[in-house]
């Protein structure tokens, strides 16, 4: 193969610089791997979501009510902007599956008798739809079926409206409504305990005495329709039938969590590769800049013999190609591989009919272009210097480096360092910008480690702090329908139950000036010990008879301050409106809840105080007996222990986090290694003569190693605290970019995360520095001293 002399020069120099080129390529490839895998996952999820929603007619508006005559559907259909209306019966059931300590929670939804649903169509993975009139046939959500190994033909026990029945699975399906399936009130998805069942409409309606009526309606809007306008109209129509307020797609649980996950991924897939690309640009600049400074005479010669500025510039930019090509190959292949793994992990939690990692030409081109821009951007300054160098000037050796007395000397600290220390200090202060950039690159790596761990730390921080202080119950039970307060008394008398407190949840709309939100008032008994409200700083907030306490997030969203009186509109019963005074905030809790005294709610509802759920404190030795007793009660729809849920969430996260820890250590370690290695190599090239002279003067290897590596040590020492701080700032910024209404808690970075980040950085730097140091052992004193720079 014919290769021009100029390209031979390039290849031989690349070979000579192979260590540096490989490390830069690794950093760049890591950036590409992150970019391709995260962006690709993001795009694949986004495309799947879009196609799934579109093809399976995911609804735009969801509304529930108590009992609405079917004829009302026509009024909704006639509303301007409404394209499709699907009414259905939706009820909660429990599934006392054999071998499970608690029944699973289920949502039982009706399917039209003779046609597929007009909204929220099912993707039948196996089997068929229930036949009309067959009251024991159901289609089951695939995640639940999979968790229990259920297939068409199997029977499952279901408590329907207080009666235990055995229903036959005829189909396994996915639904755009349940891409992420989570029980109401649960903190984490648990496929084993969350079922969705679809039953033929007439069978379901007769089980709940809803013949000729519906209690749930979903709509698809015409293009360009105002969602807000339609929802207001729908709410108005459903108000007299016990409507509790519609929600848009944005607030639909599954979609909200999926969208939020996509948002996070979108932010991270930009932030993380940016660090790698920045470091790449810096390293390319460092290495190429050094090479060009050393090659002044060669540049002059090339120009003198007739090479144009463009050819000379192109020649040095060729080195970028040498970095770029292997990085692209590894980056694209690695990104594709990692992307499939990551998407596979997402696919376990987010259920789509098809989820394929899409390495589109567009994504590949973008990855290559962005990487090329980073590498070329780094090269540009250095190459411009080569191009601009007038040939006559390049003939002359560069002026000797200008050193000045450093700050240390002016402060009189030079006596502490000795001449070796002064060499280091002057070198660092001569190139303060390079020192800062090196430190910044390493700090970027440190911050990546923080960034990859803070989510778990924050979750743990929330769990260990707020959650444990606020939620002191062992078990929480949810009733199928609100019950009389005496039921709580009965629960309290169960053997093994120490304390039982009822909670009443009432759907409301809270309004402050032009801002409003759908929320829930949690009515707590006057003497409540199991559910405590904790303000920032740890003080417990007490609620007066006529006041309410809000989560800080809700208060911020509505712009409410203590003493304000927002309008709260109850969305059930008589639909009264009140203006209670805001007396406090629960600072660190998640969500948009309102807390009040149960008495206030009873007054609002005009009843004696029904209870929708109960918190139980149970003797640890008798938890099983208590649960067994609770399971027998048909009025209880769900039993949960939030602490157990939280623990499962942490367990699940920590196993994912362990994988991520290894990946992040490898990636960050790679950056640190790359920066330190390249700096040390350049230091060695620049100082070989001085170090050899020192050896001749009688310095030993250890002493000259210290001089060579001290500047790297100082850069790392600057970078570690800066990186820890930067990581924290990034984490805060990342959290603030999330939707506060669905996902935001206080950023916590645990001391062990700081420690891990610092240790990984220092170790990677040490390995890298020692790697370069080996060269000093074989430093050929005579050759170095004879060489003309």
């Amino acid at each position, binding site marked *: 193969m014919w290769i*021009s*002399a*100029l390209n*031979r*020069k390039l290849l*031989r*120099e690349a070979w*000579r610089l192979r260590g540096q080129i490989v490390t830069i390529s690794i950093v760049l490839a890591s950036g590409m791997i992150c970019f391709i895998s995260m962006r690709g996952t993001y795009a694949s999820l986004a495309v799947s979501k879009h196609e799934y929603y579109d093809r399976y007619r995911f609804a735009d508006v969801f509304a529930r009510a108590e009992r609405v005559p079917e004829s009302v559907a026509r009024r909704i259909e006639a509303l301007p902007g409404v394209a499709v209306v699907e009414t259905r019966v939706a009820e909660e059931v429990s599934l006392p599956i054999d071998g499970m300590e608690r029944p699973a929670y289920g949502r039982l939804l009706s399917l039209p008798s003779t046609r597929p649903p007009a909204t929220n169509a099912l993707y039948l993975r196996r089997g068929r739809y229930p036949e009309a009139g067959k009251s024991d046939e159901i289609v089951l959500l695939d995640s639940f079926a999979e968790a229990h190994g259920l297939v068409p033909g199997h029977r499952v026990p279901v408590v329907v409206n207080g009666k235990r029945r055995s229903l036959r699975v005829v189909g396994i399906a996915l639904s755009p409504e349940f891409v992420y399936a989570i029980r109401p009130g649960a903190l984490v998805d648990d496929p084993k305990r969350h079922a969705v069942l679809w039953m033929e409409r007439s069978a379901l309606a007769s089980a709940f005495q809803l013949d000729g009526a519906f209690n749930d309606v979903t709509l698809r809007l015409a293009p360009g329709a105002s969602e807000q306008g339609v929802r207001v109209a729908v709410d108005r129509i459903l108000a007299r039938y016990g409507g509790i307020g519609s929600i848009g797609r944005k607030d639909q649980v599954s979609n909200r969590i999926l969208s939020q996950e996509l948002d996070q991924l979108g932010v991270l897939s930009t932030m993380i590769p940016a660090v790698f690309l920045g470091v790449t640009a810096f390293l390319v600049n460092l290495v190429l800049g050094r090479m060009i400074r050393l090659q002044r*005479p*060669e540049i*002059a*010669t*090339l*120009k*003198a*013999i*007739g*090479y*144009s*500025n463009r*050819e000379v510039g192109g020649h040095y930019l060729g080195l970028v190609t040498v970095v770029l090509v292997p990085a692209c190959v590894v980056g694209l292949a690695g990104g594709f591989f990692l992307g499939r793994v990551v998407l596979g992990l997402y696919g376990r939690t987010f259920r789509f009919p098809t989820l394929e990692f899409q390495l589109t030409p567009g994504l590949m081109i973008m990855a290559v272009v962005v990487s090329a821009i980073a590498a070329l951007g780094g090269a540009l300054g250095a190459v411009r210097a080569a191009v601009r160098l*007038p*040939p*006559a000037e390049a*003939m002359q050796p560069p002026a000797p480096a200008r050193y000045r007395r450093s700050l240390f000397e002016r402060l009189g600290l030079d006596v502490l360092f000795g001449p070796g220390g002064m060499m280091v200090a002057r070198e660092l202060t001569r190139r303060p910008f390079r020192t800062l950039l090196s430190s910044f690159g390493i700090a970027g790596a440190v911050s990546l480690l923080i960034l990859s761990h803070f989510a778990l730390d924050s979750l743990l921080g929330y769990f260990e702090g707020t959650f444990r202080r606020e939620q002191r119950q062992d078990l929480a039970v949810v009733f199928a329908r609100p019950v009389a307060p005496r039921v709580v008394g009965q629960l309290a008398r169960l053997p093994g139950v120490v304390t039982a407190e009822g909670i009443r949840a009432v759907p409301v709309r809270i309004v402050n000036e032009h801002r409003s939100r759908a929320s829930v008032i949690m009515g707590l008994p006057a003497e409540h010990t199991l559910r405590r409200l904790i303000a920032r700083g740890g003080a417990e907030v007490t609620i007066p008879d006529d006041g309410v306490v809000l989560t800080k997030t809700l208060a911020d969203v509505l712009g409410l301050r203590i003493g304000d009186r927002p309008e709260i509109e109850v969305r059930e019963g008589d639909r009264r409106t009140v203006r209670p005074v805001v007396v406090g905030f629960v600072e660190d809790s998640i969500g948009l809840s309102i807390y009040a005294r149960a008495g206030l709610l009873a007054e609002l509802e005009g009843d004696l105080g029904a209870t929708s759920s109960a918190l139980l404190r149970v003797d640890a030795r008798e938890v099983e007996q208590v649960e067994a007793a609770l399971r027998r009660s048909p009025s209880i729809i769900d039993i949960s222990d939030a602490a157990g849920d939280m623990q499962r969430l942490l367990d699940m996260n920590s196993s994912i986090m362990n994988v991520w820890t290894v990946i992040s250590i490898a990636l960050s370690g790679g950056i640190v290694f790359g920066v330190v290695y390249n700096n040390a190599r350049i230091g060695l090239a620049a100082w070989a003569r001085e170090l050899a002279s020192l050896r001749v003067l009688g310095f030993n290897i250890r002493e000259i190693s210290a001089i060579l590596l001290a500047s790297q040590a100082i850069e790392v020492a600057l970078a570690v605290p800066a990186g820890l701080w930067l990581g924290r700032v990034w984490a805060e910024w990342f959290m603030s970019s999330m939707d506060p209404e669905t996902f935001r808690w206080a950023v916590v970075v645990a001391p062990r995360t700081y420690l891990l980040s610092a240790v990984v950085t220092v170790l990677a730097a040490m390995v890298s520095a020692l790697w370069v140091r080996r060269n000093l052992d074989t430093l050929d004193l005579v050759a170095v001293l004879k060489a003309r720079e």
Partner: protein
Amino acid sequence: MQIVPNGKARAPVIAGSPILSCTGLKKVYRMGDVDVRALDGVSFELRAGEFLVLLGVSGSGKSTLLNILGGLDVPSDGRVFFGTEELTLAGEDELTAYRRHHVGFVFQFYNLIPSLTARENVALVTEIADDPLDPEEALGLVGLGERLDHFPSQLSGGEQQRVAIARAIAKRPSVLLCDEPTGALDFRTGILVLEVLERVNHELGTATAVITHNAPIAAVADRVVTLSDGRIQESHQNTARARAAELRW
């Protein structure tokens, strides 16, 4: 004549006609607050086929003159002509083309590319020139036909300088400009290099300008120009050219 021909055009090669000339050449460098006059009104010409020695002590302006004649530098004042083409009006691209097609440079410190072999160093030029010699042929002319695949670090100083000469002549330049070509060499090797230059001048008819501070070298020239403080002090024609092998210093 065009500086940027489609590659084939050459400067007029009528023996004795001026191939490179300048009038009133001045070059002023600003060093700190002081203006240094490296050239102060130099008028001079190099004729086709001529072997010219520019003699002068260090700092007399001879390297500056050579750089300007070779299109590596531009004068502060005055005009430079290559044939009838005015170099002082040429832009960056035209100067590059001038160097690429018409000028061969030989430097005191050889300026070889250390990562390229002798053959590849010459190929650097032959790959971009029109109608060049083969690298092997050029290296054969300087007596290095056996050392084609050696890297500069594997060659002696004299051999490196001969590679540099081969590189300079491989494009069949109209003008060969040599800046202290023997300056870094011992006497014996220096003579060897001068012999090569002599041979190139004789066999290829390349107009050759050698700058040196070493007065005895002037004996090999057709004409000797002496520079001092940026001015031409003296110019004389040697009645008979000595052979390089006869020189002693």
